[in-house]
Structure formats: C-alpha cells, structure tokens
C-alpha cells in the first residue's frame, strides 16, 4: 500500500508536469484546453471503474463470495468520484470556450445519466441491511445499469443527430498531436494509479464494515 501510494504520488507529479508545462498550448482554444488532460481521463477511469464493478458483480452472482461484492461496491463508489470530477470540470471548460455551461450533447447527457445511476446504486446499498441480499440486489442492479448505460449512450446519439446542438469537444479526440497524446496517456496512467489507491482504501473500509456488522450480529445472537 505504501509503495503504491508513493508510485501514485510520483506519477501524479509527472502528469502535472506533462499537462501544465511540457505539452504545448493548443492554438485555437488556448490555455484552458489543458483542462482536457484531466477531464477526459477522469471519465475513462470512471468507465473502467464501472466495468470492474460489473465484472465483480457477475463474480458475486456466480460465487456468492462477499469479497466480490466488496470490490464491486468499492469500485463503483470510487468511479462516482471520478465521474463527478469529469462532470464538474466539463462546464468549466465549456464556459470560456463556447460561452455556455452545459449543453445536452450525447456525451454530456450520458455522463450525467451515468452519474445518476452511480448515485442510485449507492443509495440502494444504503437502504439494505443484510449483506447477502444487499450484495445480490446491487449485483443485479449493476448488470442492468452497465447494459443500460450503453443503450443510453446509443439513444442519446440518435436523439441529438436529429436535434442539432452546438458541438462541444467535437474535435477533442480526433486531431491530437503526438505531444498531446503523450500528455493525455500520462495523465490517464496517473489517474488510474490514483483509482487503484482509492479502491484499496475503500475496500479496507468495506472489510471493516463487514467485520463490524458480523460482530453486531454475534452480539445480538448472544442476548
């Protein structure tokens, strides 16, 4: 855990250097374009977090081993944090460049729907007491949501192609220079390391919660 934290810290510093010093400023959007280097990777990490959550959920349903549930819940909660960063930094980029905070473009809409799904998942878990039923219910929910997220994105694209909107970040992924790619991938690697760090912390918390819950049940059974 200590080495992991140290490695993450070094990677974060390197990523900061890449994104703020090393990579040349983009010409048309100016310096604010540098938001991109942690805005976009945050979303990628959130997506990774969901699919880790999905895999762990399927693992739970197949094995009924609560360690999978631990991983799924942790990954999805950490994913929510990254998705929040993505959603919060988006408008701060859109405002100076396009003059608006938000537009219902397919990517933004999908990211927002995804965020609501994360919230729903965590609230459902909060509302349930018994670890086994909670794990089963949230695993099934995850499968539904992971499939749903894909369909949401597809349908949003369909919707917006019919209702033209100002295009946000249309060329963001397309016309990247080599240096930009390096900076982007560097930042992504750093954020992935951060994800793993946070995931470990969150799993420790979940294990602690399980232990507490078990002890409480033991106590009740003794009375």
């Amino acid at each position: 855990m200590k080495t992991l934290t140290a490695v993450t810290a070094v990677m974060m510093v390197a990523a900061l250097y890449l994104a703020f010093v090393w990579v040349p400023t983009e010409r048309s959007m100016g310096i604010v374009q540098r938001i991109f280097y942690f805005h976009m990777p945050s979303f990628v990490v959130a997506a990774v977090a969901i699919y880790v959550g999905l895999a762990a959920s399927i693992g739970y349903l197949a094995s009924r081993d609560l360690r999978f549930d631990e991983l799924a819940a942790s990954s999805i909660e950490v994913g929510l944090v990254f998705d929040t960063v993505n959603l919060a930094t988006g408008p701060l980029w859109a405002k100076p460049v396009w003059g608006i905070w938000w537009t219902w473009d397919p990517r933004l809409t999908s990211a927002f729907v995804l965020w609501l799904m994360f919230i729903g998942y965590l609230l459902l878990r909060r509302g349930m007491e018994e670890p086994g039923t909670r794990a089963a219910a949230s695993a099934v929910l995850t499968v539904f949501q992971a499939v749903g997220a894909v369909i949401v994105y597809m349908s949003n694209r369909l919707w917006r192609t019919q209702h033209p909107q100002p295009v946000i970040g249309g060329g963001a992924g397309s016309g990247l220079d080599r240096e930009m790619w390096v900076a982007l991938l560097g930042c992504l690697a750093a954020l992935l390391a951060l994800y793993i760090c946070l995931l470990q912390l969150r799993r420790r918390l979940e294990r602690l919660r399980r232990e507490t819950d078990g002890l409480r049940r033991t106590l009740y059974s003794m009375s």
Partner: protein
Amino acid sequence: MEENLKWLWYAFSLAWVIHLLYVASLGRREKKLREELEALKAMVEERGRKQKAAGEAGLAL
C-alpha cells in the same frame, strides 16, 4: 489569456477538492467504524464472560 487561466485554475482546483473531500470522507468513515468495532468487541467479550460465569454457577448448583 489571463481570463482563460482563471478557468483552468478553477477546474484544476475543483478536481483536487473533490478527491480530497472523498479521501477525507473515507478517513472519517473508517475512524467511526473502528471506534464502533472496538466498542462491539468489548461488549461481546463482556457478554461472553458473563455467560460463562452464569454457566459455571449453574453447574455448581
């Protein structure tokens, strides 16, 4: 240019604030759970000792 730098600064600090808040909340929740765990451990132990004592008394009778 100056104007734009402001937005970059906002976005960057917001990202960090969100992460730091999350880590803080993890720490807080963990502390609370550890306290609860210690309390529960103590209670279970005490309950166990009482029951044991009661059991021995029962046998003596």
